[in-house]
């Protein structure tokens, strides 16, 4: 990656003057404040990226399409169709005719160029704030192999998203999930991994044994999950690159499940069921001795570390029904944080540390919600027959989860929603899907 020059100091000055706005504005610099929700998506124009080498045409078209889909998919942006364009971008280097883009109410203009040398691919782009008549940030170039073209498209979209929202991006990321086929009484499950948008699905296990609730390691290279391959639920770690797996806990007479990584990537926490009682334990993934973190006759499960590694949020029915609690990472006294009507489970700490996502079950409906870490400002984002298992996008602004439909033909699939409760949308997978876990932003 290298900078293209063309640094417009004016654009940098504008950055400092940006103010939060609940919706895209037609005057003033581009800015979207995600937390407040966007009523009117920001219109952008993205002319098909220029092919700088003879054989780059089809990749240029595909990359343009993915960048556009990433941005539109957030619900924060709206693509202006190309047939509305007045001027065409004939060259990446040519000056922009702002008046022509203003006339079609394009607030952002994204131009790009793609070149191919053998199997090497270079993608560069520029972002313009049309109404300010200035480039927004520097042009950027990403290089890699032609095989990785989708990742480069996601990187362009992440940069655009980041510049306009002030938030980190999340498009260049992956999701590990459980791929499902078959009816409710004959369901086959296997682990799968895909790009965040459902592209490039690869299967990591076969469906000979039930697999549940995978979780990425902090660097995205490994996955923890539960498998019944021995006939009993046991926790496993799988290397995403080699697809090799190993069991982590296999004490006879016990069941282990709900494994999650600590931010250090070495410690894991999980639930161990012995004699009908389920508690939370910790161990070192290299094989260190297990330590018990909770010791109660109730069910303690679904642990999730705070991003600083100092606390664990988990669910317990010690009060008589499932509720959320926070305890120190080494165990000890737990504080209950959920107090609304109904039952609360599957808490997941946001990567930003500010919120906890959860599943809520109340009055025959399931919800995905978020609350602050002290339990305040609870907000339900979804409602359906069965929603569960939230996972956070790397920027902590979007949540993916499982939705299962009702009745004999009930089927699980993946959905995403932003933390304002807007932009609920299905994530397309080749088969049914459940238990998504979102990776960190790829390096």
């Amino acid at each position, binding site marked *: 990656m290298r900078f293209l020059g063309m640094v417009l100091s004016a654009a940098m000055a504008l950055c400092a003057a940006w103010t939060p706005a609940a919706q895209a504005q037609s005057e003033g610099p581009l800015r979207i404040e995600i937390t407040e929700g966007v009523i009117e998506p920001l219109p952008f124009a993205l002319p098909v990226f220029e092919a700088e080498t003879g054989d780059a045409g089809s990749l240029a078209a595909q990359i343009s399409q993915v960048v556009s889909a990433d941005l539109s998919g957030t619900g924060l942006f709206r693509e202006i169709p190309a047939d509305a364009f007045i001027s065409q971008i004939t060259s990446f280097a040519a000056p922009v005719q702002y008046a022509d883009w203003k006339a079609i109410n394009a607030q952002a203009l994204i131009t790009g160029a793609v070149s191919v040398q053998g199997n090497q691919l270079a993608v560069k782009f520029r972002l313009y704030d049309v109404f300010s008549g200035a480039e927004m940030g520097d042009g950027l170039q990403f290089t890699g192999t032609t095989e990785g073209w989708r990742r480069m498209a996601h990187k362009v979209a992440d940069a655009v998203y980041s510049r306009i929202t002030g938030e980190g991006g999340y498009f260049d990321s992956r999701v590990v999930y459980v791929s499902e086929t078959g009816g409710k009484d004959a369901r086959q499950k296997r682990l799968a991994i895909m790009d965040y948008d459902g592209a490039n699905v690869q299967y990591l296990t076969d469906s000979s044994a039930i697999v549940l609730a995978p979780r990425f390691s902090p660097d995205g290279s490994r996955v923890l999950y539960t498998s019944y391959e021995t006939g009993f639920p046991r926790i496993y770690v799988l290397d995403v690159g080699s697809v090799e797996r190993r069991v982590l806990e296999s004490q006879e007479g016990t069941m282990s499940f709900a494994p999650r990584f600590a931010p250090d990537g070495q410690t894991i926490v999980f639930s161990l069921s012995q004699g*009908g009682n*389920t508690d939370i334990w910790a161990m070192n993934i290299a094989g260190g001795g297990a330590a018990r973190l909770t010791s109660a006759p109730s069910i303690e499960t679904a642990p999730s570390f705070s991003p600083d590694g100092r606390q664990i949020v988990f669910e317990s029915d010690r009060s008589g029904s499932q509720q959320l609690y926070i305890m120190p990472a080494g165990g000890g006294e737990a504080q209950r944080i959920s107090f609304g009507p109904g039952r609360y489970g599957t808490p997941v700490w946001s990567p930003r540390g500010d919120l906890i996502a959860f599943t809520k079950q109340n009055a025959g409906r399931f919800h995905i919600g978020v609350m602050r870490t002290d339990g305040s400002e609870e907000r339900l984002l979804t409602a359906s027959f069965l929603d569960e298992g939230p996972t956070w996008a790397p920027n902590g602004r979007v949540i993916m989860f499982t939705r299962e439909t009702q009745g004999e033909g009930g089927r699980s699939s993946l959905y995403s929603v932003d933390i304002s409760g807007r932009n609920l949308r299905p994530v397309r997978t080749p088969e049914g899907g459940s238990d998504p876990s979102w990776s960190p932003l790829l390096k």
Partner: protein
Amino acid sequence: MTRKAKIILLVAGLALAACTNPDRFGADGTAGGAGGPGGAIVPGSPSDPNSPAYFNQTIGDRVLFAVDQSTITDEGRAVLDGQANWLLSNTDFTAIIEGHADEQGTREYNVALGARRANAVREYLVSKGVAGNRLSTVSYGKERPIEICSNESCYAKNRRAVTVLAAGLTG
């Protein structure tokens, strides 16, 4: 009866059950099979008191639970008393007790809930004299429903613990 013969009967019972119902042992509670009590005893059939088919169908291989509960009901106790007696007189068999939950609950909680249910059955059987080393437990949470509608008539049958016989001692 020799142990080998019992294994053959167990396998025959499994094969028979597999023909009639997709669930593992085909029994949906305490309903009697083809040869009910009072008829001629056909070895290995539900009328043969020492057969797995008798255990699965005549006694009943499962007990049901209330929503979010793992307490054994009065009906459940009657079934488990029968299971305990059968296990006490057929000592070559071991059993895996499978705990299950209905779909109204989060996945991992339901694994823990199924573990509670399976353990409640195990403890009851042990309290009736069945050796603990003959009984293991596993929870499937909500992963293996036998009824697939989304209302209480199905949920009630899915909230279950099933005692699955296996031949041979665990040592």
